């Protein structure tokens, strides 16, 4: 234990002497093996500090939101809800439903220790309303090293090198890009192209500020052309295929590369592969590198039960414990949201991610986090429409994108 954590433990011990039991009813959707392990890291630490953890798991984000909002409507809110700092969080925060964590933030100095992008994401109107559990990025490319070695190619560093590599791979008889059939997977490919061509600054202009002039940029048309180009490399079974079945194609050396967030790493690990050995990873190549972050956060609904308020305090401190952050990241394949933690235990992909997140100006919010309301959903609809309709031109695609994003 470091001196700092010992000190924190004393603080916890002090809080624990309150007459309240500390209860946390956690509405969450980390139910797969690796996710469950990660949530257990938090829960075990929480329990070790004297808290009582009530687990309310559900299968996915949608049902978690349905359950959480129902519980809020019904007057029995959970103490904490697992979600992402997206439009839903904004909506809850603006509705005055989320507890402000400013008191804890100021007491613990959290603002300084979080990556700036992440801090910005969890703060609404200067109220800190969520705490990050870990950060993923959705602009990774995962590849099969055996195929790369066989064809004799290196990790590409530009978008043109990427397609050149793809051609070489196709020539060797492999599927270059494994693409699944879920619409959100298709959107990721499009946003990868936009990020690669435009870089973080341009990304923020169109996704965060949603600037009209930026949306007119012909760069978008080029991005759609590349997006369309990817479909030339896709195999027949793409439609409806889940992302992890798709990852499986890379694992089994059927396909060379996949555009996917870093949760894909869990699939490789589960198949007994090691990063840097059987498979490799790189962020979407570009001269203006970017890291499109998807953050997992806890929000804490306003609650009037003293035991649960105490539980929220304890849970908040547990989540933000640097050691816990590192452990969660290691188990789940994500990157710690705190920049002041020891990265030595992370694998090569996570290390790359952590470095990118810590590099100023590289990290941006992914569409999922950045866009309010159901704009992300509309983008998904738009992307999949373009993807499945070969007659749609890149110009039309860009115009459709503009229609969604323009205010």
């Amino acid at each position, binding site marked *: 234990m470091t001196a700092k954590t010992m000190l924190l433990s004393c603080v916890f011990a002090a809080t624990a002497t309150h007459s309240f039991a500390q209860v946390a009813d956690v509405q969450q959707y980390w139910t797969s093996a690796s996710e469950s392990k990660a949530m257990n890291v938090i829960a075990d630490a929480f329990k070790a500090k004297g808290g009582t953890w009530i687990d309310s798991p559900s299968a996915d984000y*949608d049902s978690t*939101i349905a359950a959480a909002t129902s519980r809020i409507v019904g007057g029995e809110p959970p103490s904490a809800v697992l979600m992402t700092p997206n*439009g*839903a969080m904004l909506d809850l925060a603006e509705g005055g439903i989320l507890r402000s964590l400013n008191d804890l933030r100021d007491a613990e100095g959290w603002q300084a220790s979080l990556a700036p992008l992440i801090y910005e994401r969890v703060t609404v109107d200067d109220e800190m309303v969520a705490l990050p559990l870990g950060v993923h990025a959705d602009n990774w490319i995962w590849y099969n090293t055996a195929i790369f070695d066989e064809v004799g190619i290196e990790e590409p560093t530009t978008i043109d090198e990427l397609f050149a590599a793809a051609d070489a791979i196709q020539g060797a008889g492999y599927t270059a890009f494994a693409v699944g059939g879920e619409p959100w997977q298709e959107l990721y490919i499009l946003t990868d192209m936009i990020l690669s061509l435009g870089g973080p600054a341009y990304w923020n202009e169109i996704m965060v500020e949603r600037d009209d002039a930026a949306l007119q940029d012909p760069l978008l048309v080029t991005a759609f052309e590349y997006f369309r180009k990817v479909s030339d490399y896709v195999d027949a*079974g793409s439609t*409806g295929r889940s992302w992890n079945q798709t990852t499986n194609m890379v694992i089994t050396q059927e396909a060379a590369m996949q555009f996917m967030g870093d949760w894909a790493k869990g699939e490789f690990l589960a198949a007994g592969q090691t990063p840097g050995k059987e498979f490799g990873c790189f962020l979407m190549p570009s001269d203006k590198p970017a890291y499109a972050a998807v953050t997992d956060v806890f929000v804490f609904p306003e609650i009037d039960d003293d035991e649960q308020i105490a539980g929220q305090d304890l849970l908040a401190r547990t989540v933000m414990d640097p050691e816990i952050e590192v452990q969660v990241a290691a188990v789940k394949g994500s990157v710690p949201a705190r920049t002041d933690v020891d990265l030595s235990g992370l694998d090569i992909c996570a290390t790359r991610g952590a470095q990118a997140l810590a590099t100023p100006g590289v990290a941006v919010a992914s569409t999922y986090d950045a866009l309010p309301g159901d704009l992300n959903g509309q983008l998904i*609809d738009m992307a*999949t429409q373009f993807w499945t309709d070969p007659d749609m031109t890149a110009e039309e695609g860009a115009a459709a994108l503009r229609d969604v994003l323009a205010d």
Partner: protein
Amino acid sequence: MARWFQRQMFRPTFTVVAFFAVIAIFFYGSIGWTFLMSLTKSSLMPRYDFVGFEKYADLMDNKRWIVSCINMVVFGALFIVGSLILGSILAIFIDRGIRFEGVFRTIFLYPLAISLIVTGLGWRWLLDPTLGIQAMVRDMGWENFAFDWITEPDRAIYTLVIASVWRSAGLVMIIVLAGLRSVDGDLWKAIRMEKIPQWRAYVQVIFPGMRPVFASCIVLLMSEVIRGYDLIVAMTNGGPGISTEMPAKFAVDFFFSRMNLSLASAASILMLLLSLLMLAPYLYSEFRRRD
């Protein structure tokens, strides 16, 4: 008063009123509230800032909604007709006193018993050109065999029809079978005396006499069409693109993951109106029959 009360003990009125109240509160209360919400701009949580019928206009501009509605009509028609035909044929055969009736009956019925989340996955695998039937047939030597409907935007909806017929034909079979078994035996004797071919007997004599049976089937199937959600999610999740989206999925998606409560509410209200429209012919004939 006491006498009135005493008399009501012998009448169904109290019961009817009690249940009416429950249904009014839960179902019509919900419809009312949903309508109210459709006039607001609520996103994730209910809010009461009214904007009139704006959301309905948005809905009409929403390509996904329009596609969903068209899909529902196409899907609904094919699904209902398909289920009725397959279910009726199976019922006819089973009614002929075949061997192993119990085995066949159970096989045709079991789809109702298993969760759609999983059977949808089973179907998706079967229909997946690289994993399922197409791959299997090609492995057996027919290299040009193609059955990749699920990957084609124009045809994916037919795969949903196949899986839905698979799920519902058993129910239709049972209901029609029940109808067939209550057909008067003398009618069959007459048909044999007149030397009417069997198929004509079914099409022109037996089935027309079973109109209420088919009406019940159609109403049940329609409610499946309108509320159909699980199977779509499990099989195509609306894809490829938005080619297999349906109104119920639209509403559910917009309720939660799209955080657009008001739009989802507007969609739900329109779905109800749509279902009333679809029910209209049935209701018309029903009311006319009673009069």
